[in-house]
């Protein structure tokens, strides 16, 4: 893979290894939260709700760190527009809704339902779109 850093118009780096792990990892963590919420919704077994809370917290940790990479990526982009901007905004939106969902999951027992399940579904869809935008080498920037 080329590591040339010549600053030409529209040039941005493809995500590095760590950035990729963080972003792709948060996809599966958010999916785990969604599936756990879905199971709690169907069984009333509280342990699934505990799983969902921790999976969402882990996803936020990964997505939050990826957000730092995305911001650096954006600041280096010339112009600061297009895919790098879309990626950053999408990831930020995912993170913020995920954070709201974390507080929703701090409610006791059934108080988190059905909003928690709905938020988990929205966040999962968002992180999938975000990852496609962020990880696609053509959209990520290598031209």
């Amino acid at each position, binding site marked *: 893979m080329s590591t040339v850093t010549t600053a030409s118009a529209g040039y941005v780096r493809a995500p590095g290894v760590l950035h990729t792990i963080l972003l792709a990892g948060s996809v599966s963590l958010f999916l785990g939260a969604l599936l756990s919420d879905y199971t709690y919704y169907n069984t*009333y*077994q*509280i*342990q699934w*709700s*505990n799983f969902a*809370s*921790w999976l969402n*917290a882990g996803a936020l940790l990964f997505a939050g760190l990826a957000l730092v990479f995305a911001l650096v990526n954006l600041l280096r982009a010339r112009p600061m527009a297009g895919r790098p901007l879309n990626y950053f905004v999408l990831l930020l939106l995912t993170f913020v809704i995920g954070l*709201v969902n*974390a*507080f*929703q*999951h*701090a*409610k*006791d*027992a*059934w*108080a988190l*339902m059905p909003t928690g399940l709905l938020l988990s579904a929205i966040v999962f869809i968002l992180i999938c779109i975000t990852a496609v935008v962020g990880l696609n080498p053509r959209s990520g920037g290598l031209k």
Partner: protein
Amino acid sequence: MNRSSALALFSMTLLASACSNEANTNLASGPDPKLPAPERGLFPSMKIAEPTAWGDQKPTVPEGYSISAIATDLKIPRQMLVLPNGDILVAEGRGGSAAKLKPKDVIAGYIKAQGNTKVKGGNRLTLLRDADGDGQYELKTVFAENLNAPYGLAFANNKLYVANQDAVVTFDYQPGQTKAAAAPVTLTQLPAEINHHWTKAMTISPDGRYVYVGIGSNSNITERGMEAEVDRAMVWQIDVTTGAHKPYATGLRNPTALAMNPETGQLWSVVNERDELGPDLVPDYLTSVKEGGFYGWPYSYWGQNVDPRVMPPNPKKVAAAIKPDYGLGSHVAALGLHFSLPTMGAKFANGAFVGEHGSWNRDNPVGYKVIFVPFANGRPAGAAIDFATGFRDANGKTRGRPVGVTVDPRGALIIADDLANTVWRVVPNR
């Protein structure tokens, strides 16, 4: 969303200064409390006590009464017992081993710990003696140690009953004794798994045949699962000769103090109700405890008000729920109950003293005082009167937090303060 509460979650410094609106109304008191609709923003409203020392200050008591500290430097005093010779036993300790199941438990546990003492619980009984009757308790000695978070205390027929967080144990006691002669004997094991609410309140029947033990729920509102609530949120009746137990009354979320009304022989309890339904829900209460009665938890509160956080619902249990007798106000955290005697003075001769540890789930703190609920004919009659106040100072810092209250038959109210690790004594001036 409540902004001051949002900050509170992340900053202890802001916690103390945020929410300075002092409109200190708490409508949910009396026999027929006003119950607003449940509310819960993204964050629960919170304000944690910021501890400060009493210094030269003391709690404020009614005119004609005086208060003094009779013991300091205790190790988390909770409940007390006045023995026939006037000696006072103080149960000291802190229990509970509830695992942190959610990220929320980690954060909330840290925040709530800021409002409590940093002292390690004593797991012991301390004996206080005023041999010459001058109101100074010159002897302070350890009566028994290596107990497991002792809380409820009772005495009858030369036997001392101690409710540890996991068992009722007994000591033989002879008048004048200052130290237990032998290790305690276990009467009955108590439900102790998780022990989210660990305090085991206790009182004894007038004939000394049964002890009654309060066992709190294992969660706020079933968030540890229904399986964790087996044998929880109830009062047990235990036969003191055999140790056999049966549930005496159920659906009492956290019965933190039990007492017999001396006039009627009826069992009463103060009960701490559920959190996170808003600042004015749900009222903690004082109630007579009827044999076989179900008081609502977890399915409903204050009679038939359904709690939607409990799934699956149980309409039959909701229909059966008894409405408590007297609301004390939401989140006041009543932890002490003892009935008065005529030796306390005419105004406070008939009624119940209630120690209120104070709120966390409320922007405007409530509780942090000892109140008196007047009784007539064995029932609450009239509005509660403040008996000991000043546990929070003018700057909103907390000097002390009342727990157990015990009437000394000679004419004194003993108050345990588990933040200042002090025992206070209030007497009518003579």
